[in-house]
């Protein structure tokens, strides 16, 4: 296992992502951040507070549970049974630019599920995908609009994101 990002680097990536989102999003648009459970929600919270500072107004933040939209619900899961949790989005997504946040973009299947889940909640003006780690191995035609760290680690190897709020420390390790 090798540490590829420490807490300083993660902080820097989030700052860079914030600047890029800020510069590419016209100020007349309503913007909101939605994180995919569970690491994505932590990153979404951090991004939304950085964006709020930069824009000088409150950028709403929500959490999306995609379990019911997964494409592997009817196949055996081994030990990781999918657990349904709540979606907590306390604002209307219609007409907003949604920054969809996840920790790792890999096969693209979570992002597909998240987009379907979002469309069932309303009709955003646009959905943009922001991820901390972009690893090779896409199985669907999906790309990130804002990607932090890029890696082409071999399929099947582990990429593990730890965050202070959920795991006690900020760190990304690669097998």
């Amino acid at each position, binding site marked *: 296992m090798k540490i590829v990002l420490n807490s300083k680097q993660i902080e820097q990536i989030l700052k860079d992502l914030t600047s890029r989102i800020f510069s590419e999003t016209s100020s007349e648009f309503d913007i909101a951040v939605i994180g995919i459970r569970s690491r994505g929600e932590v990153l979404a919270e951090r991004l939304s507070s950085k964006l709020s500072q930069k824009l000088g107004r409150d950028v709403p933040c*929500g959490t999306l549970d995609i379990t*019911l939209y997964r494409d592997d619900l009817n196949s055996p*899961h081994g030990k990781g049974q999918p657990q*349904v949790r709540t979606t907590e989005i306390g604002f209307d997504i219609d007409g907003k630019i949604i920054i969809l946040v996840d920790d790792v973009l890999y096969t693209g299947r979570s992002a597909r599920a998240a987009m379907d889940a979002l469309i*069932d909640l309303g009709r955003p003006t646009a959905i943009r995908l922001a991820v901390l780690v972009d690893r090779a191995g896409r199985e669907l035609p999906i790309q990130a609009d804002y990607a932090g760290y890029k890696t082409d680690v071999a399929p099947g190897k582990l990429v593990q994101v730890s965050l202070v*709020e959920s795991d006690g420390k900020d760190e990304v390790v690669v097998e």
Partner: protein
Amino acid sequence: MRCDAMAIIKRKSSQLKWQSKHLLGLRELSAEEISYILDTAEGFEQISTRAVKKAPALRGKLVVNLFFEDSTRTRNSFTLAANRLSADVIEFTRKTSSVSKGETLLDTAKNLEAMGIDIVVIRHSAAGAPKFLSRNIKACVINAGDGFCEHPTQGLLDAYTIRKLKGSLKGLKIAIVGDIAHSRVARSDMWAMTKLGADVILVGPPTLMPAQVNRLPVSVSYFLDEVIEKVDVINMLRIQFERLGGNPFPSVREYSHYFGLTVERMKRAKPDILVMHPGPINRGLEMESEVADGPNSVILEQVTNGLAVRMAVLFLVNQAAAQQK
């Protein structure tokens, strides 16, 4: 709205898995399993409040409502729950089926199975019918009421409603009032509530108490006036005239006088008491209209929560079946 990541992550419950492809009753479930179903149900609540009231979790699955007894609430709730998860539903009622031509339960079920059903929701007057079915067919079986035995989704939705409004069931005093002997709701409620840490008091005339009530993990009172001041939750059962034999009480008026939830009695109850009823209500008999429609009544919330709980149950049994493939 700001999302509070810390709080959300702390709520992440244990890694317990739901293993069973059937839900036959609550008696055999652990407190953890019951809590797991209730936690799961929380995630289904929002489906009913958003723009598109449907999720694809059971797409391509076939659910059969196999109801050998009358029901509106439970059957509609299961149908809607299955529809909201994108499953297809076949409605089967005794009156319009070959059962009236003498077909046995097993033959009926085997025939439905030949059509490729995935989940059977069954209500039957014989206690144990769901268990019998679960042993003889491959599909998932959900008990929607069997004889005087259990009505597990009602027990779950009652526990869910109390947990949602009171935070927890631990240490609460809950009265279940009325025709306990003929009530499968009372039994499922009792199992769910006591397992989750509540003290349950069964209240009713001795003639409507089940035999060997002293073997159950509950206390018993024959006087509503004795318990009304003490309880945090009161669940009023319907007098099931269709099941009553003999004369369990001298008159409806006398029953009402001793066991009805009246405006007068409510004055002595805790101000934040939850008033529940599994429906359908005999207004003016077990409960006065002013109480049923009053500020403490959560009767309609029970119905709403029932939908989320049934979606969760359908989802979990189907997940368990997928794991056993």
